[in-house]
């Protein structure tokens, strides 16, 4: 089932962050709050926009995610997967703390974000 997650870049360092249940902004998509499209999402977007006014984040928006069999959260669009997992070009830039992230430095052939998960 697809859910929504709210993401943005943190103002101070530009890094990708996700809105967590307690209203804070988490570094990892695994800590993001899963939202249902509709009023639940809309209410949280109000909070996210307030965080932009409060100079915490820049440009918040919602993305579609799926929950994997192992309970991990995976964005549907590959653009958002790259945002969540880090660049696929340097293993040391990728988010190795996120299970299921893909690192590709040693073997650059299986770099497809499509159909993984």
């Amino acid at each position, binding site marked *: 089932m697809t859910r929504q997650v709210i993401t943005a*870049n943190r*103002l*101070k*360092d*530009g*890094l*990708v962050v996700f809105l967590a249940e307690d209203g804070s902004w988490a570094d990892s998509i695994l800590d993001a709050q899963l939202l249902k499209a509709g009023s639940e999402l809309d209410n949280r977007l109000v909070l996210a926009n307030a965080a*932009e*006014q*409060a*100079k915490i984040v*820049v*440009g918040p928006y919602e993305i579609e995610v799926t929950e994997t069999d192992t309970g991990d959260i995976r964005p*549907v*669009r*590959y*653009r958002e997967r*790259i*945002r969540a997992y*880090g*660049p*696929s*070009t*340097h293993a*040391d*830039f990728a988010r190795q703390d996120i299970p299921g992230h893909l690192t*590709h430095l040693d073997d*650059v*052939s299986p*770099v*497809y*974000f*499509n159909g993984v998960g």
Partner: protein
Amino acid sequence: MYRYDEFDRNFVNERVTEFRGQVARRLSGEMSEEEFRPLRLMNGLYLQLHAYMLRVAIPYGTFSSVQMRKLAHIARTYDRGYGHFTTRQNIQFNWPKLDQVPDLLAELADVEMHAIQTSGNCIRNVTADPYAGAVADEVDDSRIWAEIVRQWSTLHPEFTYLGRKFKIAVSASDFDRAVIRFHDIGLILKKNDAGETGFQVWVGGGLGRTPMIGKVFNEFVPQQDLLSYLEAVLRVYNMYGRRDNKYKARIKILVHETGIDELKAKVEAEWREIRDSALKVPDDEVARIRSYFAPPPFEQLDAIDRSFETKKFENPEFARWVTGNVVAHREPGYRIVNISLKPEGLPPGDITADQMEDLADLAETYSFDEIRATHEQNLVFAHVKQSELFELWQELAEIGLAMPNIGKVSDMIACPGLDYCALANARAIPLAQRISKRYADLDQQFDLGELKLKISGCINACGHHHVGHIGLLGVDRRGEEYYQITLGGSGAEDAAIGSIIGPAFSSETVVDALESVISLFVELRLDKERFLDTYRRVGAAPFKSRLYPEKLDAAA
């Protein structure tokens, strides 16, 4: 090298102070992102997919060991230990933190560097031939004129808020090593019959979603009239260029929609008005700037160094690197050395802080303390003694930078693509990495000869795919990465825009498709023909039928 005078130094320092204040107001909330965005862009700072990105200018691609060491320090202190050389002789840092950027810029200013004119709708950092001052085929050192254009363009009050960005490149040779014909204005230094120096002026070239080859607007603008002519072109563009649609705002569209004759007439009319104004470039000012680019103290050397010939004979790997990466210098006993930033399987243009420091040391030892960046995301040591090439090669090999693949299939241009860029539709670097691994065999690469492969992750074409002998363009097809193949482009003196060969290939199949194209070239090629020449001789049809055999069946 050019050194800052008091004016330059004050200006750059004042800009740092000003930006420090702007960042503070952004962080305190006095300024919204909307208000801050144009200000940060004027200082080369983008907000990309994962983080801020700072693009640092290397005017006309020339910089010193001291500056390279500072870039290494910045990579280590403010970034993640890397830098990335771009296609306009700049370097990008992919992870700076906003609150630290003012300190970063202050450190750059300490070594006479900045990030001004690397973004925004202004006249961008002026680029030049990376072999300037070293190669025999040039009329003059193009950097002298690039610096004159730089001084005229920096903070030019009339051209700070143009309809769109504006890129100028300068060359001084019949061989185009600076993509002159695909710039908003491309300048080629020429001598006329009287032996005077002037510029052939190309206007309206560009890539992006509407690729255009520039048109010659003037065959010979005398050197003292360069700035008035540029000002006339810019003024006409600023006056008549479209502002209703950012995709139609570049001067190439104005040239295309107005027609060359009409636009040229407007430029000429404007030029007549201002030609004899304060914009006349005074000879003593040219001489002053020329003195900064005086040739280094070359030694009187024999044209042939015996030990060099012996080393080549004894060491085939060294000989291959010399064949691949080393070119003739105008001084006897010297050579121009290209340093490939395309090691096998690694991101094109990336360089680590350690490599930067090692290269700074090597430049000091072997090339008069001077480094050049090329638009093909490589570096150049412009003045190396033939007798020291072997030592330099050994030292480069130790730091993983002796790849002898200049101009070969693995010497790809690739934009940052979706791994970094907020505009991209698909990734470019991992595709370059896969191709680099597929063509890892250097014998095969040398057999294939010159083959310019260029990859862009979106239609903005930062990876120059339109002018690749083979170009790859990343597109998003229903949420998946696909790649369109274009054939027959060239960014050199034989300029051409590549043609799309057919429907795009999936990420999984595109490298095989590329291999099919290259295999067919090998079958069709006459003698040692380049891919581009074979393609021009046989046309697109054989490549189409090889790539899309099912279409052929359907037609039969």
